[in-house]
């Protein structure tokens, strides 16, 4: 047990060091772009897993990313606030919406919860589409400020405008903080309560765990980080379109998570890395690339019932 815990630590440490050193290798800006995408999806998918482990299979997660992204973009564009603050406000807005809707949706369980989140997600996207004056509608929102030049503590200037690398480090730090927070939460008493509710809501409430309170808690926390991912990505990308937060992106998040394996904390990370990176390797196939994606999915479903995590586990032992 101790040995496996140590080897786990070593693997995590190696990965973190490697990801910090990555921009020092001779990689093109496109590779950095893909890495930023991967980091954004890791935040979103890991936060989705936090909702899943409390027995709530949400299929509208991308909508909360959209709420964060649009709140942050509109605040920085209309009120001229600095993106560093609006990013946090965006995440809080997603969390507030999740808390309110979470209380409403709490009465539904299992498949009915999935359905209501699915429709809530597409309703939120449709609302964004109707508010053309504010969000730009289908044609998208452009012209909101990106992260400029900063000089933290007088240590030296970091220029976000000239290169993608500072964004990469920003996303990397956000990802690590998110993963740390989610890991600590999962291992805390709240995390235990979530799993108890997922196993049996009836038994959980009979031993004094408030089902409503903890389900709303996990939904709100998950959506906070989704909003964070959305707003960070918005200020990186500089362009927002409502279609990036519709049904299909939500489904993709579920795919990443299920494919990696819900049962393990590393599942979403492995799922995102494999499903974003491998199709990128086959980019030269152009319109045939989705076949690679679908092929990986079918392969995992037929051969690895535990998800990709199962493969890594059996390789380690």
């Amino acid at each position, binding site marked *: 047990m101790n040995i496996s815990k140590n080897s786990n630590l070593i693997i995590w440490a190696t990965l973190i060091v490697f990801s910090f050193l990555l921009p020092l290798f001779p990689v093109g800006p496109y590779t950095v772009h893909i890495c930023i995408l991967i980091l954004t999806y890791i935040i979103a998918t890991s936060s989705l897993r936090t909702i899943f482990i409390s027995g709530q299979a949400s299929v509208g997660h991308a909508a909360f990313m959209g709420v964060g992204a649009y709140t942050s973009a509109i605040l920085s564009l209309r009120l001229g606030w600095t993106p560093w603050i609006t990013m946090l406000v965006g995440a809080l807005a997603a969390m507030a919406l999740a808390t309110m809707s979470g209380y409403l949706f709490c009465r539904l369980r299992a498949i009915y919860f999935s359905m*209501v989140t699915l*429709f809530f997600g*597409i309703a939120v996207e449709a*609302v964004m589409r109707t508010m053309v004056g504010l969000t730009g*509608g289908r044609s998208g929102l452009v012209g909101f400020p990106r992260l400029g030049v900063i000089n933290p503590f007088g240590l030296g200037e970091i220029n976000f405008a000239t290169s993608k690398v500072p964004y990469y480090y920003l996303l990397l730090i956000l990802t690590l903080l998110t993963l740390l927070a989610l890991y600590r939460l999962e291992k805390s008493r709240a995390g235990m309560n979530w799993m108890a509710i997922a196993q049996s809501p009836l038994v959980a409430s009979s031993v004094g765990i408030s089902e409503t309170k903890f389900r709303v808690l996990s939904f709100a926390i998950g959506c906070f980080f989704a909003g964070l991912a959305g707003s960070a990505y918005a200020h990186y990308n500089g362009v927002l379109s409502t279609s990036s937060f519709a*049904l299909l992106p939500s489904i993709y998040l*579920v795919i990443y998570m*299920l494919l990696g394996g819900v049962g393990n904390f590393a599942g979403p990370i492995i799922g995102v890395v494999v499903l974003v990176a491998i199709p990128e390797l086959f980019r030269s196939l152009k*319109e045939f690339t989705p076949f690679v994606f679908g092929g990986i999915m079918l392969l995992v479903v037929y051969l690895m019932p535990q998800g990709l995590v199962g493969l890594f586990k059996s390789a380690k032992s």
Partner: protein
Amino acid sequence: MEIFAQTVVNGLLLSSIYILVAVGFALIFSLMQVLNFAHGVIYMVGAYVCYYWGAYFGLGPWGALLMSALTVGLFGLFLEKFCFRPFHGDFNRTLMVSLALIIILQAAADVTVGGYVKRVPTVLPGVMNIWGLTLSNERVVTFIIALFLLSGLTLLIQKTKLGQQMRALAQDRDAAALQGINVHFVSGVAFGLACALAALAGGLMASIISMNVHMGDAMLVKAIALVIVAGMGSIGGLFISGLIIGFMDATLPLFIGGAGSDVVAFCLVIIILLIRPQGLFGIEV
């Protein structure tokens, strides 16, 4: 008056197409407990196969429609046997298979026919005049075909032995198997039937609107909305919920625009889920 009549025809048309797709979705869900997210894509594939039979094999509109239903129905049998049967009872994995099917079939449609705008030749071109109202022939005919199909399906489920077996399966799969019903055969036939109906809906719809690779996404959402409003497991309720949602989609965009009508329709579904999760006509709690 004319706009009113056309709106009614559009409402009936949309309702019947939605019901055709949703009936298959509900059939698969109640018989196999599979949430088939690929059903919207099957509808899209139906339209593309219909186009393919017409454009590459020179079949007329009727022939193409029939062959498309047959091809996609057989494809449904194949899917049930090799993609869904091995994972029976494992909700996550059947969900994953259906999501993988979405991605693969969309890419396949994109590669073979192409994403650019195409239409299937209509079964009956032109317009007709009834009591001084101008109505497009294809819409009326499409509605009548859909009506025939739906009555046929209702008869099949209510009156025949196969329909009885299907209802037995929906009630209790194990008990049905113990009574000597070949559960694999019945669910295979039901899956094929559901796919054929979705393909017919796709073929019919592709003669009215231009088709594209993503036409199934919106239809999947509509099908799920219908099933929720009616209640999971209630096939008869689909007719009422289909009319409600079809007419909302036909009338609301006239007043508040496409996106606004989406908001209203989806909020209606959310409210129904919150107040009556079992749907308007569902029995199960």
